[in-house]
């Protein structure tokens, strides 16, 4: 079932086109990886889906309804967002942060009730941080903070979660923790995830774990390739879009069937002067 439908989308400010002619359908229960070089417009496309930025042409439909027609609270009951890195301000308690995921279900002049707190605790439990509920979130590590952001998105109880490079500031282990959490969300809870990432291997990781994974490759102001990880992340595409020579590796890990990874070898035509 098509959950998100993007039709002929274009975003431009002044006369600079960030992306144009983007057409995309994302199905329910799918994990969609948005790949592309720096500055190709991944974040802007996510912003337009969220309604933070407005398309200059085209439209985005969510569950059959144009996202422009959603009221601000209504959209947040359909789509949650996990930022690339969260700017911490005041040392709120972890649970207070996750409770904010209930904003869309709470009136402007009221606060979350006991049922909302239960949902927040449940979300923290899913990401494995219930034990830290009472801690100031400013004391958490980058990886834990990102898990709190995911818990907050879960508390929104939305069918779709958008993630903007959720692992970009994390160490080796916490990157895996976040990826594993994402796999659980899609597999166990049926959440549809759209994730911008810099790492082609993320797509393979999800694919290797049996998720319904598709990849969109953005370049030159448009979404150039859409398909399965295997179809899109090929040695040829990586070479032509990133100008990186890469090698596809396929190997067996324990009982898994063939696990695929893309191995970067070297950059091509780099300016050395």
């Amino acid at each position, binding site marked *: 079932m098509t959950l998100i439908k993007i039709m002929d989308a274009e975003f431009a400010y002044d006369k600079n086109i960030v992306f144009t002619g983007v057409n995309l359908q994302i199905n329910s229960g799918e994990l969609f990886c948005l790949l592309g070089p720096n500055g190709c417009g991944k974040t802007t496309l996510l912003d337009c889906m*969220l309604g933070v930025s407005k398309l200059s042409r085209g439209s985005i439909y969510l569950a059959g309804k144009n996202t422009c027609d959603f009221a*601000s609270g209504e959209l*947040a009951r359909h789509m949650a967002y996990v930022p690339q890195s969260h700017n911490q301000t*005041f040392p709120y*308690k972890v649970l207070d942060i996750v409770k904010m995921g209930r904003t869309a279900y709470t009136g*402007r*002049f009221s*606060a*979350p009730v006991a049922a909302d707190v239960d949902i927040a605790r449940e979300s923290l439990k899913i990401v494995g941080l219930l034990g830290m509920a009472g801690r100031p979130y*400013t004391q958490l590590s980058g990886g834990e903070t990102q898990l709190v952001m995911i818990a907050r998105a879960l508390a929104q109880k939305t069918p779709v979660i958008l993630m903007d490079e959720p692992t970009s500031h994390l160490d080796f282990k916490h990157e895996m923790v976040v990826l594993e959490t994402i796999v659980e969300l899609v597999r166990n809870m049926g959440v549809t995830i759209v994730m911008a990432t810099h790492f082609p291997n993320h797509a393979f990781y999800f694919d290797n774990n049996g998720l319904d994974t598709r990849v969109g490759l953005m370049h030159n102001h448009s979404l150039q390739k859409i398909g399965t990880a295997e179809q899109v992340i090929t040695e040829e595409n990586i070479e032509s879009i990133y100008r990186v020579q890469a090698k596809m590796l396929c190997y067996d890990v324990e009982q898994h069937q063939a696990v695929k990874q893309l191995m970067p070898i070297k950059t091509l035509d780099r300016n050395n002067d």
Partner: protein
Amino acid sequence: MSPTKQKWTGVLLVLAPLVMICLSLFIGRYPITADMVFKVLASRVLSLNSTIPDVYDTLIWEIRMPRAILGAVVGGALAISGAAFQGLFRNPLVSSGILGVSHGAGFGASMAIIIFHNNAWAVYPSAFIFGMIAVLLSYMIGRIYNTTPTIMLVLGGVIVSSVFAALISFAKYVADPYEQLPTIVFWLMGSLASARYQDILIAGLPMMVGVAGLLAIRWRINVLSMGDKEAHSLGVNVAADKAIVIACATLATAAAVCVSGIIGWVGLIMPHIARMMVGNDNRLLIPASFAAGAFFLVLVDNLGRIITSSEMPLGILTALVGGPFFVWLLKKTRAGGW
């Protein structure tokens, strides 16, 4: 924080300002014994027919009492607006004056003092209206790009504040140096000395509306402090909610400033005291800031009446007490969560 501790903190925050108000009835230049203060209070409360001299009755009920009450609501209004702005601007160093309300009100008062010769019925509305105009201008500068990014609002506040500061200087320059200039200078330093019940009534309504509005929307300030993009994705109509918080905080601050002059530091420091007591959740922080501000301003006003024979202007004392305290706070918070 355990529930019992939370409960006692709440009790303390309610009682402290009330105790301080009661205490202030005993403090002042006019010699009146504690014994007599009790008698005066009792005679009105229990409506006894006693032989208390009128001067004592007037002193307690018409001078010290309204002054203490006004001090409490002004302090509370400044602190609650400061706490709301700190959340809204995601910055712990912001105070209630960030959008220029103090300088605007200061100019409004100076102008009224020159034109209408310090008639209270002209000074109050003029200070109030120019305080509101200053914030409106800052807000419009912040909206140049049709959104209200925090940095643009802060810039708007800086610009508007400095323009009104210059206008205040101009007013001082053209003012009559024997009559008007001292009045302007004293007004700008802040004082509760002339407080009467009518002041409380005049300033009370806008202050009450502002404070009630901030109390109502206080949990949303948590969400707004996540930044515009996250607040939007969590389901907040960012522009509308920001406008409500700014309008409420401005009503409260402008009303406070127009009856008491410019009193600095309360709106910056009292929210931090409240943070240490109840944490950063605005659901608790906003009411706690009101209590802390009410307590602090009555305390400082009492100090001002005790330590010098002629009353020291409030703005001087809040800064003298607040400055060293703020240094200590900075040192302490570096070791704390942020």
